[in-house]
C-alpha cells in the first residue's frame, strides 16, 4: 500500500514537472524576464527550453540529423547510460567493500577510529574535479596483473571514491549502535568479537546501512558521470552530455535527452537499492 502510494506520487511529481515546464513556456515571455539589465528568469524559446514532446521525439531520430544508417539518439543514450551504470555499479561495489572494511576496522579499534575518521571526512572535501585528472594520470603509469590501465578504470575508481564515504560513516554508526545492555548480554553469553559482530552489530547496523547505500548509489552515479566528463572517457552518458551540449545551439532537444538519460540512471540506481531494502526488511526496524 505504502509502495503503491510512493509510485503514484512519483508519477504525479513527474507530471507536475512536465506541466510546469510547458506552462513556463506558454506564460513567460520568450526572452525571459528582466529587471533592469539582469535576467531573473531564463529564456523560454525553443532553443533554450524545447517542448517536452520535441525532446521525447528526438529519442527516436538519428543521432546526427540527415545521416542514413545511423543509430538513433535513444540507442546512443541507452548504450551510454548502460555503460555508465556498469561503471557506477563497479564503483559502488569497490566503494562499498572499502567503506565496510574501514568501518569494521574503526569499530574494532577505537584508536583507528580516532586516527582515520578525520581523514575519511577530509577526503570528501577535496573537489572531485581536482582528483579526476590525478587518478587518470596515475592510472597511465601502472598496470594490474599485466593489464594496462583503461580509462574506464579511472572512472570506476573515482566513482568509488565518492561511494565509500556514506558507507564507511553509516556502517560505523550502525556497528556502534547496539545499546550497552545488548553488548553486555553478548558478553554474558561469552560471545567473542566475531560472534557479537555477526549476531548483534551487523544486524543492528542495517537500519543505518540502507540509507547509506542509497546515498552511496546516487554518489556513485554522479561520480561516474563527472569522472567521465573530467577524464574525457568515451562511451558513457557523461561524454554524451558534453558532446550534445556542445551542439546545443543547433540541436537543443538532443542535450535534454542525455540529461534525461542521466536522471533515469539515478532512478535505476535508487530502485536497485529499494530492492535491497525489501530483501533486508526483517532487519530494518527503527533507528534508535
Amino acid at each position: 500500500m505504502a509502495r503503491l502510494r510512493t509510485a503514484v506520487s512519483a508519477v504525479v511529481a513527474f507530471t507536475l514537472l512536465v506541466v510546469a515546464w510547458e506552462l513556463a513556456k506558454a506564460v513567460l515571455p520568450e526572452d525571459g524576464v528582466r529587471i533592469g539589465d539582469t535576467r531573473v528568469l531564463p529564456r523560454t524559446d525553443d532553443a533554450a527550453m524545447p517542448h517536452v514532446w520535441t525532446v521525447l521525439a528526438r529519442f527516436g531520430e538519428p543521432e546526427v540529423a540527415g545521416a542514413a544508417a545511423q543509430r538513433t539518439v535513444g540507442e546512443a543514450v541507452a548504450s551510454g547510460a548502460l555503460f555508465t551504470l556498469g561503471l557506477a555499479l563497479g564503483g559502488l561495489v569497490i566503494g562499498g567493500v572499502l567503506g565496510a572494511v574501514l568501518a569494521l576496522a574503526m569499530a574494532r579499534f577505537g584508536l583507528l577510529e580516532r586516527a582515520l575518521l578525520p581523514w575519511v571526512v577530509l577526503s570528501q572535501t577535496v573537489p572531485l574535479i581536482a582528483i579526476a585528472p590525478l587518478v587518470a594520470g596515475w592510472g597511465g603509469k601502472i598496470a594490474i596483473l599485466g593489464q594496462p590501465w583503461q580509462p574506464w578504470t579511472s572512472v570506476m575508481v573515482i566513482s568509488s571514491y565518492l561511494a565509500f564515504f556514506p558507507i564507511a560513516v553509516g556502517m560505523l554508526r550502525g556497528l556502534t549502535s547496539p545499546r550497552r545492555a545488548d553488548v553486555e548480554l553478548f558478553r554474558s553469553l561469552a560471545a567473542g568479537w566475531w560472534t557479537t559482530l555477526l549476531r548483534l552489530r551487523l544486524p543492528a547496523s542495517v537500519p543505518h546501512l540502507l540509507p547509506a547505500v542509497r546515498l552511496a548509489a546516487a554518489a556513485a552515479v554522479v561520480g561516474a558521470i563527472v569522472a567521465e566528463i573530467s577524464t574525457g572517457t568515451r562511451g558513457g552518458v557523461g561524454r554524451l552530455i558534453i558532446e550534445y551540449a556542445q551542439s546545443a545551439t543547433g540541436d537543443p532537444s538532443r542535450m535534454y535527452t542525455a540529461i534525461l538519460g542521466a536522471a533515469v540512471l539515478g532512478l535505476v540506481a535508487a530502485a536497485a537499492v529499494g530492492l535491497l531494502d525489501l530483501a533486508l526488511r526483517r532487519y530494518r526496524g527503527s533507528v534508535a
Partner: protein
Amino acid sequence: MSGPAVELAGVDKVFGPVRALDGIELTIGAGEFVSLIGPSGCGKSTLLRVVADLEQPTAGTVRVRGKPAAQARLDQDYGIAFQQAGLLEWRSVAENVELPLHVHGVPRAQRRERAAELLEMVGLTEFARSRPGELSGGMQQRVAIARALAPKPSLLLMDEPFGALDEMTRERMQAELLRIAGETRAAVLFVTHSIPEAVVLSDRVVVMSPRPGRITEVVAGRRPGSRPDLAPDDVEDVRESAAFFTAITDVREALRKGHG
C-alpha cells in the same frame, strides 16, 4: 554434591572516588533465592555485575559454582536478565530465546526444541513467531527470562527485571518466577528496590546501604525454600499473611538503620 552457587569474600569495588562495594561477604546456596535491596547507589547492581563478570572487583574473591567468575561466565553457569528485556528486534520471540544456544553453536533442531519448551514454561507458546515489538512489556520480560534459562543455568541473575512493569503484571510475574525457579531448581540473585517484592520472592533478603556500598543486614524472607511446588495461589496467601507484614517491617527497619 552441590556446593554453594555463589561465594563472595572481601569484595571491594572502587569507581574513582566512589566505594561502590565495601567488604562484601555473601554466600548463596544451591537453589537459594536471595534478593538484594537498598536505596539507589548502594551497589546492589554492581554486586550482581561483579558476580556476572561484567565488572572486575577491585579486591576480594568471587566464586560461582566454585569457579572464578570469569570461568563461570565462559562456562555459561549463569543466565542473566536486566530491567529492560533487551530483545533483538530482528529475531522472532523463539529466536530470541534461542540466542544463547545459537551463540554457542547448538544445532538448530535442539535449539528449536529447547525454545519451545521454555516458551511453554513462560506461557508464550502462541507468540513464538511474533516480533518482540508486538508483545507487551510483561510478555517481553517473560521472553527475556526464558532466554536467560535457555542454557539450563544453575544460577539466575536478575537486575530489577520487573522494575518497568505495572503492579498487577509485576505480581503475576513474581508468581511465575517463583514457579520457574522451583521447577528449574536454579539459585536466584535478584536485585530490586521493592520491599514486598524482595520479601515475597526470597529465602533471604540482603539489605544494603550506600556510600560505601555495604551489606547492613540479612532478613529471612517468607518463601518456604523447601517447597519447589509452590503454586501462584500460595503466593497470594503469603502476600496476605501476618508473617509477610512482619518481614516487610523488618526489611524497612533495616533499610532505615542503614540510611541513618
